[in-house]
């Protein structure tokens, strides 16, 4: 848990505050993204937690590893920083030290022995899906994305309960950034850290955050809420502008396809005979229907007009489906996939290509409308 209590920062020589009476609480095990335009004090806010910047007034509390809520202003800054994971952009790696030495920075400061540091570093590389031989390489021998993973691993070296991340994926190209974000979210499922994550990218803030803290210039807190609520109910004009005119579309990011799909869709078996299938489709007034085999693996689809008056097995009329949506895909990507192939209904499949449901544009539309309603918390998950 990280708790801000009317924290203000006024830099010497300036009259207006950089951060103004900020109060919010990040619950344990959640990621809070701080986002806002440049000059909004988001980095200042983050750096006050590990006292790289001293607040002018107010208090900041952090839950330490023993589960005690402690006021950071009463702690020794050096000890405080060693107990908090700190991740910045990949250029923050020490170029003259190997990956092992980089990851082992804080453990070394804490006096761990070499074997323990190496074991921990190996563990972290495995967690990051990186080969162990990287340990003895130097940062310049790695790609940008790999360096950034090492940066995250370095921040987690001592398994701190709280982590601060300062635009960690800012300097990475969009494709790799997306991969890194997904990896980090997957990791967070396991490690459940309390994270303060600074970014200037509202899409990243929505994607990564369990909570979003939107700051305005001068360090005014405009809104602190879950992504779904911020998108559905922007507190004021500033937030509305900041999240963008496409906030309805952004909301689709927050809903996964299995939450809206029809999980008992009409299907025919590849081994059924044609007359039976045609009758099945006529009863439900369907022009086409997806075909599966005995264990629900997707085979393709059949059209009623192809089979009318014919005999034989459904199998002979199957055409391959141009697309299917994986379970876990968000609605935005699902919609995008549907627009590309121009299907009204698209199958939702699991990792083994077994059909789990069916989704269409009406269902997506309905989900958007529902999340607009006051009790709209379905989007969270």
């Amino acid at each position, binding site marked *: 848990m990280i708790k801000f209590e009317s924290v203000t920062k006024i830099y010497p020589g300036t009259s207006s505050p950089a951060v103004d009476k900020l109060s919010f609480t990040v619950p344990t095990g959640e990621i809070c993204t701080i986002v806002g335009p440049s000059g909004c004090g988001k980095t200042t806010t983050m750096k006050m937690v590990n006292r*790289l910047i001293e607040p002018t007034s107010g208090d900041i509390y952090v839950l330490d590893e023993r589960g005690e809520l402690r006021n950071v202003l009463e702690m020794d800054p050096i000890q405080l920083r060693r107990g908090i994971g*700190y991740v910045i952009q990949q250029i923050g790696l020490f170029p003259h*030290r190997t990956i092992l030495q980089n990851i082992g*920075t804080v453990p070394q*400061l804490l006096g761990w022995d070499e074997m323990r540091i190496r074991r921990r570093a190996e563990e972290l590389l495995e967690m990051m899906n990186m080969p162990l031989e990287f340990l003895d390489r*130097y940062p*310049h021998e790695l790609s940008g994305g790999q360096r950034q993973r090492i940066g995250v691993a370095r921040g987690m070296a001592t398994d701190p309960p709280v982590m601060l991340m300062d635009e960690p994926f800012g300097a990475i190209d969009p494709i790799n950034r997306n991969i890194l974000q997904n990896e980090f979210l997957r990791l967070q499922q396991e490690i459940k850290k309390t994270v303060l994550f600074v970014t200037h990218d509202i899409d990243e803030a929505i994607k990564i955050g369990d909570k979003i803290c939107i700051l305005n210039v001068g360090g005014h807190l405009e809104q602190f809420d879950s992504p779904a609520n911020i998108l559905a109910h922007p507190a004021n004009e500033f937030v509305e502008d900041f999240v963008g005119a496409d906030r309805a579309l952004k909301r689709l990011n927050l809903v996964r396809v299995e939450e809206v799909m029809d999980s008992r869709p009409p299907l025919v078996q590849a081994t059924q005979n044609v007359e039976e299938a045609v009758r099945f489709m006529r009863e439900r007034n369907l022009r086409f229907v997806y075909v599966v085999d005995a264990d629900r693996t997707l085979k393709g689809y059949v059209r009623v007009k192809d089979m009318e008056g014919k005999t034989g097995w459904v199998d002979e009329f199957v055409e391959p489906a141009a697309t299917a949506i994986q379970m876990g895909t968000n609605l935005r990507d699902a919609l995008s996939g549907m627009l590309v192939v121009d299907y009204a209904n698209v199958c939702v499949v699991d990792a083994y290509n077994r059909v789990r449901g069916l989704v269409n544009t009406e269902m997506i539309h309905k989900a958007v409308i529902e999340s607009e309603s006051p009790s709209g918390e379905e989007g969270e998950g």
Partner: protein
Amino acid sequence: MTTDVIQRQRQNGFWREMLNGWVTILTEPSLDTFYAQKNRADLLKTVLGVGLLGLVIGLWALAVKPASLIIETETAPVELLRVIFFTEADFFIITLILFFIAKGFGGTGNFVQHSYLLSLITVPLGMIVVAFLFVGDKLGLTLAAVLNPLSPIGIVSIFMILFGFYGLLLLLFALQATHEMQASAVVYTLGTVLAGWGILRVASMFVAQEENIITTEWSFIAGQWGKGTLQKLLLGHLWLVAFSVAIAVVLGVVIGVFITWPPQRPRLSHVVVLIPLALFLLLWAASSGMMGEGMADSIMATVKGWDRSLTRVEGFFGPPLDIVAAIISKPAAVGMIGVVFTIILYALFLAGESASEVTLYIAGIILTIPSVALFGVMIKPLGIGPFNAAFALVLYAQLPILRNTYTGIKAVAPEITEAGRGMGMTELQLLLKVKLPMAIPVIMTGVRVAIVMLIGITAIAAYIGNDTLGEYIFSGISRAQEKRYIAGAILVAILALAVDYFLGWLQNLLTPKGLKGRREAV
């Protein structure tokens, strides 16, 4: 019949190509020309080209009959063959030595390319030199007179020197084109050859045991070595440089660290830097009679006691002890150092980075004072001898070290120090584990510049009574013995080159591995 024609045609093309190579090398001296010629490399062309040079030298020898080349008893054809053979042998031996040294510095070329490119320089240049000597001989000049830059026919010799430089330039191009190595490695290769050649010359003079009359610079050097004076001066020179640089490194790096240190609020513990000032005030009070008689006497007696106990120790540790004794024995000296240190350190502690500009500015001004003037000015407060010299040398050496420490630390990206600080490093850990290791290559460059510069300035310290290699220069000038001061200058130059070479190696050794690769990658 037809094969004969083809062969002759090929031969024609062959000779024309070789002639073409010589002309382009002489008229278009550039790296590209050598790269282009590299592709035409051919061992046969090399052998024939050098053979042709040998033939020309042989013909010249037959016409002029210099004692070193001609053995009267043999017939002309035998003489010719012998000269050609020796020319080839000399060429390939020297080429081979250069080749191995270049390989040692990471050269990548093969021997055929290497020897071919070198022959393209050697053959035409050699022929031009021979033509010069021939003309000179016909004008009644001896070989020694033509080659002596101080002889009356200076224009010819100046031309020959320029010609030599041109040859050297071509040689640099050829080595770089063949081995595709960095320019510094090329210079090191040649430097090694020259140093080796110098050592061999000195050694051969030793063996020859020439008389006391100064015939050449090398024989003078060999004679001095035999008497043991050279070793003594060399040792004195090196000690003075080493001592001054050691102090300058500490001074430069400490000040460099201070002026890059984040500003701090004054604390009681900072009073530590006032200790030198207190020492100065104590000594000053004692010597000026401001204290009670008894106390002042005992302090002064202690100081004098230090002085007396440090009687000169002959041998290897003599020179540094002299310097230390000279410093300790002079209250005024301790005081000067104390005041300078105190003011700099305390100002820096409080002012932090804002003091850096002023500090660098002052350090820069010091470097502009001519060394002879600085030595002279310091005679009054510090006397003559090693301390005066060391004081001035430290002042000179600290600028490159201080400036490079400052630049090196400042060049560490703010994100990197930020990361270190954010992970809980103390400022001292940040300095020792991050800032200084990353700044070491830059600092070492400064130390290298300082040392090479000091080797030169230390020669001038002979002027205020120090045993350094400058002794030869000053005594040579006052006795009008030109060989003597030229020998002195040569020795200083060789020392500077050798030390710089050694330091380059050391610098490479000290550079953290992660930074080396990064520099290459950039």
